[in-house]
Structure formats: structure tokens, C-alpha cells
């Protein structure tokens, strides 16, 4: 991040600085909050996190170099603040028993698209219809919340906030190759989580083409078959977060 040195012409006019801050930094509040919700995963912590980001940004606003990317600078503060002050307080999501993405696996097997389209009776259904009809906003957010933190940060910055790999590398202080691999693995995990949630919800069915679908559901302690598992059932791989969609009866 480009920043001016401490003796490099700090803004002395507080009023002007405040006006500039309100004009340039405050409009990013909504999107920073949206990101903070996915990092902190609850309203209260997200609010605290964003307040702290603005307090820090305002205090060091004199160091901000006008004309450089203010938005990226705010996100740098957001990720730093989160990493240094918040993540330890957060309960980590349970490590889901997901199949490990195999980096040599480049043929596409195992993506959400494959699971929707491969070896299914209802194959004729357009995968994009499946996406829009069976995956609700809450499901998508919950899937992101289920990602391990390092993948979640990369996914939020890239998929949700559209930052370039270079920006993300600078924010997280990691090499750009690491950004690529976190996104690759993160998205594969995200799609697996999404699919597993949908199986549990009973809105899609495990595919025989993916033994892992059956394994995960069959690992439910009481031996329920995947067919008996409905939305809200406590038979996920690992424990589920309690937030999210209201509990409903199995729809089948």
C-alpha cells in the first residue's frame, strides 16, 4: 500500500481532512460491512470490526496518499484488524470432512457443475436453473462461512469484492501464487460445502458418480440413509453452525 511517510506532508486542516474522509472513505461502509459479516460471521462482531477499521483509518488518514487506492487501503486495514484482533475470538467452523482437492485433478471432476450434471436422472434440468432454484442467498453465505479462514479471506476479497490477485497478495502479505492456490482450493471447498448443504436440505440428491456424497451423509452417527436426511437435520459431516436458515421439516 502506498503510504506517505510520517513527515511527508500530513494533512493539517482537520476540517478538510474530515470532509475528504467522509467523501472518500465513508461511502465504502456498506461493502466493508458486507465483507466483515463474512469474516466475523455475526452482526455484533462485524459492527465492532468495521468501527475499528474506520477508527484506525481515520487516525492514520494523514498517512494516506491521495490519489492512490483508498478502497484497497481500507481493506488492508480490515484484513489486518481482523487477523490481529478478531480471529482468535472467533469460533472456527468445524473442519468438515471434505474430500481433499487434488491439485493434479484438472479434468473438472467434483465441481458443483459436475455434481449437478453427472449421471443424474434429472440431467435435463439446466444447471443454471438448479443454481437459481435450489441455492438461496442464505445457503451461499452459509457456505462461505463454513470455509477455513485462509480460504475465506481470499474468496471474500476476490469473489465478493472483486480485488485483483495482486491487491489480495498485498493485503494478506502472501505471494501471488499463494493467492491463486487459496482461491483454487477455497472455491473447490466452497462448492463441496454448498453441495453437501443441499443434500442435507433434501433439495438435491447424492450422485452415484460421487461416492463422497454418500460417504459424507452416511457418516451420520445414527446411520440414517441420505434419503432420510432433511433440511435442518443434524447429520452433517461435523457439527453445523446453528445460524442460517430456519429449521424446516424435510420437504420430501
Amino acid at each position, binding site marked *: 500500500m502506498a503510504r506517505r511517510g510520517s513527515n511527508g506532508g500530513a494533512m493539517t486542516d482537520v476540517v478538510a481532512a474530515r470532509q475528504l474522509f467522509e467523501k472518500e472513505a465513508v461511502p465504502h461502509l456498506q461493502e466493508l460491512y458486507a465483507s466483515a459479516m463474512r469474516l466475523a460471521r455475526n452482526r455484533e462482531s462485524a459492527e465492532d470490526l468495521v468501527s475499528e477499521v474506520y477508527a484506525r483509518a*481515520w487516525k492514520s488518514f494523514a498517512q494516506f496518499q491521495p490519489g492512490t487506492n483508498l478502497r484497497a487501503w481500507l481493506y488492508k486495514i480490515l484484513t489486518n484488524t481482523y487477523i490481529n484482533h478478531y480471529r482468535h475470538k472467533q469460533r472456527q467452523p468445524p473442519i468438515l470432512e471434505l474430500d481433499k482437492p487434488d491439485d493434479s485433478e484438472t479434468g473438472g471432476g467434483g465441481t458443483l457443475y459436475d455434481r449437478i450434471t453427472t449421471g443424474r436422472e434429472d440431467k435435463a434440468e439446466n444447471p443454471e436453473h438448479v*443454481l437459481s432454484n435450489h441455492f438461496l442467498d442464505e445457503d451461499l*453465505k452459509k457456505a462461505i462461512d463454513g470455509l477455513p479462514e485462509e480460504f475465506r479471506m481470499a474468496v471474500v476479497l476476490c*469473489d465478493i469484492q472483486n480485488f485483483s490477485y495482486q491487491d489480495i497478495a498485498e493485503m494478506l502479505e502472501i505471494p501471488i501464487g499463494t493467492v491463486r492456490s487459496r482461491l483454487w482450493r477455497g472455491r473447490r471447498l466452497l462448492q463441496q460445502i454448498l453441495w453437501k448443504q443441499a443434500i442435507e436440505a433434501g433439495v438435491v440428491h447424492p450422485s452415484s458418480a460421487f461416492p463422497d456424497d454418500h460417504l459424507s451423509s452416511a457418516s451420520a452417527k445414527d446411520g440414517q440413509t441420505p434419503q432420510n436426511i432433511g433440511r435442518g437435520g443434524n447429520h452433517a459431516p461435523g457439527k453445523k453452525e446453528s445460524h442460517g436458515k430456519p429449521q424446516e421439516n424435510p420437504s420430501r
Partner: protein
Amino acid sequence: MNCEESFEKLYGFLDKDIDGLTLTQIEIHLKDCRPCWDRFEFEKRLKERFRKSCHKEVCPETLLKKIKDILEKY
């Protein structure tokens, strides 16, 4: 470029993290290969859905107030 090679570049393509030549090669492949075109289109939609669903979070009024207070205080 074949299906496997284009799949390897899927995320680079979606995230605009590839050079112009590779971009053109992928576009040519997608024009000729319906299955890959469908796959890429699906991934693009999925990414868009994630983005939209997250941006629907509504920032509480109280937070804006807190931030105004911070600006007053320091």
C-alpha cells in the same frame, strides 16, 4: 487449447488473471466447445451469485452513527 487446458485456466479467466493471448485462446475454445462453454458460464454465474448474495447484507444505521461519532471524537 483443449478442454483440460482451458479448465486449468478457468479461474484465471474468470478473475482476469491471464494474458491477452491466453484469453483469446480460451475464447476460441469456448466458441467451439459447448460443454466447456456451459461449464464456464455456470462458474461465472456462481461467482456472481456469491457476490450478489453477500452484498445484500444491510449495514445497520447504528454503525453509520458510530462512525460519525469516531470522526467527531478524534
